[in-house]
């Protein structure tokens, strides 16, 4: 049971970093106020990471939190975990809390797997008796049994993560706080983790607070989902309704930018953007871009060539993490001045679920960059799966619909 009342968190930017004694002492000595660092002026140099957030989570309830990066999800979990302090408001609760903001916290690379199970378990708040009673299960779950007495610095990253999650999964707090830990490990292990999470919340009746970008997992595990938007609690309710609302919000998706007047339009002397738009063809009734949705990119711009140079328009598609998925370009062409139109089709069953953004580049004479319209469009692709019991993150940035065939060609062969 957690009661959150009017929580706000204020961060000063710039001044927040570790300072220099010499400067601060100097200002104190001369009686002058210290300047805010990094050249940020006093008035703008702060953000409210959370603003007046209140809610109550009942015993045994599984609550999910969604929101864009920077919406305050992690700050909220950090405040509830007592890692950072709210600026206003208060939180009261009943029951022992364990937070899992990162698996493997406190692992020491010089120590063996066995030592680290205890160390990590204690750091997460387990007693020795609790760890001992679950020790075999933890080792079994992690599958690193043979390397138990090897220093973890010799572990592969997969083994490391598995051991770390195994410890965390066997925590026995009344309230468990989990931040995006499902994004680690291989697919098989993720599945195991999700099953374990379900078991923790379902059978054992623990309260779980859960942040994930994996909307499908969230929808499956949670009874209630909270949407955070720019530090405020925007809405809360049953998961399906909340996830649909979250994806509809144009704060996540910027599918269109249009300018009527070339003077205010983004660009320069050669290029002015009139319109750039992503038009989805939704497969069903719902207006929701998922892996089955084809996307058509349309672009209109004013063009003013300097001479007889050519122009190439390129489209760069990035994941939110900044990996470039593709870079496609138009052939060289020599249009005269005026309004130019370009378009491109991103087929259905191409992108995996995730967040993406598009930048458009205008190049002349193959090398001279006329204009780079950076991250002008952004969108989120939702997951869609049929007939599958597996909700972990589907691997890869693309999810093409290539057919994989299986057949028996020798029924008499033995393993």
């Amino acid at each position, binding site marked *: 049971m957690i009661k959150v009342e009017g929580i706000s968190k204020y961060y000063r930017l710039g001044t927040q970093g*570790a300072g220099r004694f010499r400067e601060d002492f100097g200002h104190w000595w001369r009686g002058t106020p210290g300047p805010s660092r990094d050249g940020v002026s006093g008035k703008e140099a702060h953000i409210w990471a959370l603003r007046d957030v209140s809610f109550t989570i009942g015993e045994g309830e599984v609550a999910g939190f969604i929101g864009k990066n920077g919406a305050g999800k992690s700050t909220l979990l950090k405040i509830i975990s*007592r890692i950072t302090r709210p600026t206003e408001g208060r939180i009261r609760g009943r029951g022992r809390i364990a937070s899992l*903001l990162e698996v493997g916290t406190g692992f*020491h690379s010089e120590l063996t797997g066995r030592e680290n199970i205890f*160390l990590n378990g*204690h750091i997460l708040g387990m007693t020795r008796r609790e760890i001992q009673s679950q020790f075999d299960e933890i080792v079994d779950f992690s599958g690193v049994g043979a390397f138990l007495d090897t220093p973890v610095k010799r572990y592969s990253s997969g083994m490391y993560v598995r051991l770390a999650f195994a410890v965390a999964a066997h925590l026995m707090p009344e309230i468990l706080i989990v931040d995006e830990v499902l994004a680690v490990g291989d697919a098989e292990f993720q599945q195991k983790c999700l099953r374990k999470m379900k078991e923790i919340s379902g059978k054992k009746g623990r309260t779980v607070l859960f942040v994930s970008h994996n909307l499908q997992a969230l929808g499956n595990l949670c009874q209630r989902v909270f949407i955070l938007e720019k530090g405020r609690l925007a809405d809360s309710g049953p998961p399906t309704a909340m996830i649909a609302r979250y994806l509809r919000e144009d704060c996540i998706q910027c599918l269109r930018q249009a300018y009527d007047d070339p003077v205010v339009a983004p660009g320069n002397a050669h290029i002015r953007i009139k319109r750039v738009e992503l038009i989805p063809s939704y497969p069903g009734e719902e207006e929701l871009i998922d892996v089955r949705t084809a996307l058509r990119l349309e672009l209109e711009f004013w063009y003013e060539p300097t001479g007889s140079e050519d122009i190439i328009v390129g489209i760069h598609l990035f994941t939110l993490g900044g990996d470039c998925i593709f870079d496609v370009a138009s052939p060289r062409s020599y249009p005269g001045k005026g309004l130019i139109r370009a378009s491109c089709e991103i087929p259905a069953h191409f992108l995996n679920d995730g967040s993406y953004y598009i930048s458009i580049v205008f190049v002349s004479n193959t090398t001279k960059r006329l204009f780079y319209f950076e991250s002008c469009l952004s969108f989120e692709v939702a997951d869609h799966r049929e007939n599958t019991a597996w909700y972990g993150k589907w691997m890869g940035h693309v999810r093409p619909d290539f057919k994989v065939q299986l057949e028996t060609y020798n029924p008499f062969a033995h393993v």
Partner: protein
Amino acid sequence: MQREKEWDWEIDPKYHWFKWELGAIPRYKDLLYRLVRRDLLANYQQSVLGPLWILVQPVLTTLLYWIIFGRIVKVSTNGVPPLPFYLSGIICWNFFADCLSGTMYTFITNSAIFSKVWFPRLLVPLSGILAHSLRLAIQLGLFILLYGYYYLHNRLPGPGIGWLMLPIVLLLTGLFGLGVGLILSVATAKYRDLDYSLQFILRLWMFASPVFYPAAIIPAGFVLWFWLNPLTPLIEAFRALCFGWGAIPAGYLWMAAGTVLAVLIVGVALFKRHETSLTDIV
């Protein structure tokens, strides 16, 4: 109103100087034990000599002091054979310096853990003190062997009832290191440019403490200043008890105890007040 009392815990935005939550520490005694173990295991698995290093370091330092201060510079040892004299000073100083420098970087070296999981932060410096106490115990074993040798050769008096005071003297020495370390841990987290000056001050502090000389040779004009340093009465008391020097001024000893207590209270209060806000900085 009845329901209000049912909450187990509460998080509020206020900063408290004296909400120390020491009651939470016993619940984490398993973690404390593990942290001490981690400290000892990880340190000695990494070094060439392993746990032997605990003894090699004071032995080599003692020999070096014996050559430099005993043979070359010829500093008085107040009638005590040089080896036990230097070893006693080095053991006391090292215990203090280890407790201090083990604590003063608490927030910097543990920022990764502190930003991910909550547990009573004081456990980290406490575990450091306990690990150093174990090292101290081993070094004291060496000192007792050396002492026994000189005792059998009738060059040192036998142990008296005063030896029961030794744990108190050493406890005060360790707590002083902890207290100063706690204050500095807040400072080093806030100001990164303090590091060099602090290392330098620590080195000077050693020369200002009676590690390789007895307090008896301090010129009259400086006596008060030297004795205001709590380490002077503490190290002197340690030697007086071991080497049968007779009583040292009780006033200075009480003052040292008072200073240690005051520094410790300021240290814990400062540490507790800033422990969460420093997580936002580091």
